[in-house]
């Protein structure tokens, strides 16, 4: 219970960010919420089920374009965002049925390539997506501060919903099934778990909030191009964040997203020419020194030795 309370306090604190009156800080906060949502979503298929999905960029871009196209037809922003989430979910379900029988590297590549294919489709289908010339979105006629607040709260809502979803999955049958699949898929199916059903469900769930986040992002920047929204970094960063925080846990992705965003901002400000290299160093360091994520490190310190892990905790 205390954990739930402290998380709620944390959310409330974050929600007070606009009080500081700094638009740039609010922008960072919005990015944090967005990446937290992406990381939490990825956690379902990558953390719980152990399937290394690189499809995040595909869902994000799909959501962005869906939202932009819907808004272009006059639909309200909020409906467009919800619609984008649904479309991404449906797409993921179909895609999942096609590629979730693959394992390991093959699945990773297939999911990565989907984003590339969608990028090419977006670039070629000029009549609908504007092709290489991108797509405009309707400009909001409200003040800068109001806009910053609007998008901050929108992303925060998505992040909180994703967090809630993680919690529900972790404590429910789906999470149990996914964890079984991760440990030993063949054994799981022999025991009677319908692996295909649970995998596809997990994959579809992992797309909903990513799609919505993509649509919100599109509304936020007023102009999208295929290369921006289908970028492979959109797939890689959430993975690094989850690994950083602790894969397969509920809070891990959030912590990872937070730490990553802070690190990235510090690096960007201070190392003008070699920030990519510093990021690379950080990633390498992460792999070697923090292999179970920050939560894993903390747990090790708190439960050093005797106490057995309870069933909802991180399963290594």
């Amino acid at each position: 219970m205390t954990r739930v309370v402290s998380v709620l306090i944390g959310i409330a604190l974050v929600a007070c960010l606009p009080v500081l009156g700094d638009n740039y800080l609010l922008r960072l906060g919005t990015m944090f919420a967005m990446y937290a949502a992406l990381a939490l979503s990825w956690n379902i298929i990558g953390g719980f089920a152990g399937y290394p999905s690189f499809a995040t960029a595909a869902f994000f871009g799909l959501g962005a374009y869906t939202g932009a196209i819907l808004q272009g037809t006059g639909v309200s922003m909020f409906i467009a965002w919800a619609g984008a989430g649904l479309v991404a979910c449906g797409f993921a379900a179909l895609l999942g049925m096609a590629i979730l029988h693959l394992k390991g590297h093959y699945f990773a590549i297939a999911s990565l390539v989907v984003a590339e294919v969608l990028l090419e489709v977006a670039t070629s289908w000029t009549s609908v997506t504007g092709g290489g010339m991108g797509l405009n979105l309707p400009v909001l006629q409200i003040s800068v501060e109001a806009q910053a607040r609007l998008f901050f709260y929108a992303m925060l809502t998505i992040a909180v919903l994703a967090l809630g979803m993680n919690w529900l999955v972790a404590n429910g049958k789906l999470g149990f099934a996914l964890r079984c699949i991760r440990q030993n898929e063949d054994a799981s199916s022999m025991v009677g778990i319908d692996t295909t059903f649970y995998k596809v469900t997990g994959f579809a769930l992992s797309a909903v909030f990513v799609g919505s986040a993509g649509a919100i992002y599109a509304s936020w920047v007023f102009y999208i191009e295929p290369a921006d929204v289908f970028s492979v970094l959109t797939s890689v960063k959430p993975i690094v964040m989850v690994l950083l925080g602790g894969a397969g846990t509920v809070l891990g992705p959030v912590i990872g997203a937070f730490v990553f965003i802070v690190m990235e901002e510090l690096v960007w400000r201070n190392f003008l020419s070699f920030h990519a290299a510093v990021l690379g160093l950080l990633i390498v360091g992460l792999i070697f020194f923090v292999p179970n994520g920050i939560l894993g490190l903390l747990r090790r310190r708190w439960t050093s030795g005797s106490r057995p892990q309870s069933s909802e905790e991180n399963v290594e």
Partner: protein
Amino acid sequence: MTTRLFDHVRIVTAGVMLVGTCLTSAGAVAQETIRVGAPLPLTGPLSPEGIKQKRGYDLWAKTVNEAGGITVGEDTYEVEIIYVDYESNTPRAVQSAERLITEDEVNFLFSPFGSGAAKAASSVSERYRIPTIAATASSEQVYDQGYKFLFGTFTPNSTLTDPLAEIVAGSSEDIQTVAIYARNDLFPLAIAEEMRISANEKGYEIVAFDEYSIGTVDHASTLTLMRRSQPDWIFATGYINDLILIRQQMTDLGVEPKVLTMIAGPAYKEFIEATGSAAENVSSAAWWHPAVSYEGEGIFGATSDYVAAFEAEYGSLPDYAEASASAAGVILQLAIEESGSIDPEAVRDTLTQMDATTFYGPIRFGETGQITSLEPPVFQIQGGAPVVIYPEAVKQADMLYGDIQ
């Protein structure tokens, strides 16, 4: 149990403090300087372009400061350009623009490189009502959102293709068919479309209009088709690496049109160095060329003075991207001095009314904020160097036809 709670709280608070300290380290801003924000792709695929722009801006800032600064009413202000690297990533460019405006509190903004990023970032500067000058954005789509604070130093793409079509049509050569090959990206595609329109107007037959995706490493199929259909005129667009490769493969496969026009590589010396003798007789157009001659108001004086200053500083002739960046600075300076203040609204209004001549050419902005007064030169590489073919006033040589190997 409570230790867990406190740990969580500690972590969150520490994080907030961490973020807070690094963000507030920007500190207070003393106003004896005019701060101009310049988000640029200093790393990543577009970094060659970003570095060019930076050179142009730096030369301007240095020249202005050495001359004592910008006169605003009775005071003089120093110029400080604040660079942020957005890693050739457009969302980061948008973020950079906001950071420069809210954290570094810049008074004015220079746009990121290219049409796409300039357009994306302009949404931020428009929201904050900060006058923004785009030094490398030509596509009309960049300026189509009705923004009031965005100005551009490149004329629309049609101003490049129309004169080209006219010159070729006016020659005595028998040139009937045109093949267009464009990179599927905002600027290269847009200008290819303009070429199609210009060519149609002049009565040419467009035998092919193909696009290639970003990251294409082989153009052999399209070029093989061209070898068979043998168009008189081939018009290819892309970035410098694409055009180098296309030119090379054309030589390999024996595609030899009467006219070969490429945009936007040939203006850069890197293109000529990379293609060597194959660059001969390649034609192109750009918004400026060192050979044009304008008597300028503004800190650089006449075109020849600017070229000399650039050569003294960097040891090479300026190309149109570098010149455009310097011009952006000059334009900003003229607007500030004329309005006698650094108030964004006043400077913006002055910009809309501007009618001046600089080393870069005559400066007048249209309704959308894009410049309308330039006469982009057409040039051709002859004897290993670009020579100007048009406009008449600065023409150095006639256009040569054929002899493309």
